[in-house]
């Protein structure tokens, strides 16, 4: 099954060696993260040492070696969000979920991450839960947002 997916992704690229980043992006999109065995497999398939595959996979923020929660929460930490109070909002999420940024809740329902800038500065401060965007939020709104996604 996984082998088919890998072959399908690889078939899209002519020059696999210079397309490593794009290949990893496709894999990340498909699996939600980059599983270890897939990376080992890819390294063999395209004949790039695993060390180089890993160095690329850990350099770029778009890649994750860990699975994510069912509802990934992204708190925007762009400058506009920062001056409008993003930091206390991130901390409010951390307290409510009992996890730190970069972690998953034990039941894998949520993962919490910060993001550089999603470019919705007009709505600052902004939080994304999955694909849903919440603008002009405050600490007091955090429990209400989480409630919508509780199991």
């Amino acid at each position, binding site marked *: 099954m996984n082998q088919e997916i890998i072959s399908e992704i690889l078939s899209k690229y002519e020059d696999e060696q210079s397309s490593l980043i794009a290949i990893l992006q496709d894999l990340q999109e498909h699996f939600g993260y980059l599983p270890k065995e897939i990376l080992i497999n890819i390294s063999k398939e395209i004949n790039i040492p695993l060390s180089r595959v890993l160095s690329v996979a850990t350099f770029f923020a778009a890649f994750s070696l860990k699975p994510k929660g069912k509802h990934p929460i992204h708190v925007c930490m762009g400058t506009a969000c920062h001056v409008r109070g993003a930091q*206390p909002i991130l901390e409010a999420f951390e307290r409510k979920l009992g996890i730190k940024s970069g972690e998953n809740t034990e039941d894998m329902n949520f993962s919490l991450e910060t993001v550089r800038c999603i*470019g*919705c500065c*007009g709505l*600052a401060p902004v939080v994304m839960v999955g694909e849903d965007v919440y603008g002009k939020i405050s600490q007091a709104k955090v429990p209400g947002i989480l409630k919508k996604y509780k199991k």
Partner: protein
Amino acid sequence: MTEKNKDKTFRIHLMVCAGTACVSNGSFEIKEALEKEIKKYDLKEEVLVVTTGCNGFCERGPLLVVQPGNIFYQQLKLKDIPHLVEEHFLKGRPVEKLMYSPPEEKTPIPILSDIDFFKKQVLIALQNRGLIDPEKIDEYIARDGYRALAKALTEMTPEEIIKEIKESGLRGRGGGGFPTGLKWEFVRNATSPNGGEKYIICNGDEGDPGAFMDRSILEADPHCVIEGMLIGAKAVGASQGFLYVRDEYPLAISRLNIALEQAREYGLLGKDIFGSGFDFDIKVTRGAGAFVCGEETALLASVEGKLGEPRPRPPYPAESGLWGKPTCINNVETWANICRIINRGGKWFSSIGTETSKGTKVFSLVGKINNTGLVEVPMGITLREIIEDIGGGIPGGKEFKAVQTGGPSGGCIPKEKIDLPIDYESLSEVGSIMGSGGMVVMDEDTCMVDVAKFFLTFTQDESCGKCTPCREGTKAMQQILTRITEGKGKEEDLSLLEDLAKSIKDSALCGLGQTAPNPVLTTIRYFRDEYEAHIQEKKCPAHVCRELNTYTIDEDICLNKGHGCDLCRKNCSADAILGEKKQAHKIIQDKCIKCGVCYDVCNFGAVKVD
């Protein structure tokens, strides 16, 4: 327009903004609701709904502009739509309550061009904004699209193109401000090893937090960037181009791919374009979330599929770029200006702006400002005009403190310099840079030490780690700033910060490191008193650095004005507030985690921070 609508004319066009901020605010739902109501009243033959790129006035989204007439509707909600369609599009009575009124005024301004936010703007790079559907090449062509390309390919020699761009005085809009025509000439004159290829790259790795100019151009008018690259390719002699776009911009990537496909279909990309014998094609490359990849040598490495690490220059990419071949890299906004310069002439472009900075610049105006959004202004306009006239000033009657330009590489400009004209030189004189166009407004509630720490944390995190000054130096600076904001700063910290800043500036490998100290240096230069308050008095004057804050409740206000509303206690996640409804409340200092939620939620001003 869909095929069947292609030759139809409509009585009314409804231009719905589909920029990222408006989409997040539900503009596609608004579009559906409009279409549903239009169908209900059988107006389908008369009224057409068009989705456009970013209109610019993001603060007021979702937005709708009615053409003809240029009537501007804002902050639309789904429940407004039936009434709007019935009143305006069926009965011809524009709905005043959905129009824009300036803050603290009641009279609505119906027409877009009469609104202060739009009035002082001069559109060149954004000239098609809100007027075309970015996913339809015919609409771009109808607004003179690809006319400049035809001229460049059939009437102009490469030297003539370069001469025109040089005459325009256009300088790189990505931050560096290098003269574009000169760069093109270098690439034109560079010889490729073994007579090989040359490349064109569009840098769309817009990494500055708080900046979304390039994203908006790519989303609103992708063809103008493609056309610019085609003209550049003819000028320098390239046959392959790459459009490098941030991974975080999925909408831009999808619109670019649609645009490229349509351009190929029309024979505007590919072989023998316009029968001129000129071949060129463009590939989209997605970034993978590394700020340093906006630096051109790191970007090149990333396009080659390698780690996005920079390398020393020279050699510059113009000589030895992608796979060692001469490569012309310009940013999105620079490319967006090209077709307009070819159409209207370098002389026209150079008539706008100042002596050394020509044309216009697009800024994303964000932060503590009433009219957040995307603005394009002539070079030489003052900060005051942007902040007060276009931006509508600071919300809530607060006092303006500073404006930050140039992102993590830039600096903070204090209110004393509000009459500074915006051009490359003036900004650099005050310690900041033009940068790619982020403009973050700060008010009295913004702590400048915290802002410096914010940017340093950003660059520290994004430092690729290749060179020691940037990797270790920014970390040391960040640690010092952190202890200052925690009230543990020492007397000698300021001079230590300045020394470190100087060493990093002098010795870092690439632009990221060399400019990383700028936010710290400018805040020390203009807001030394704030640093000193943190260090000597252990106080944060703006009450942002929470370790230094103490929250208390004025029991008199709580009881007599708020009647012990209990809202603070309900929201306190640390159980640090004592009290019941109709009683005065009190904060237990030992338990308080200083999150400030009580201060935020109190409607009576009973919670005090010191």
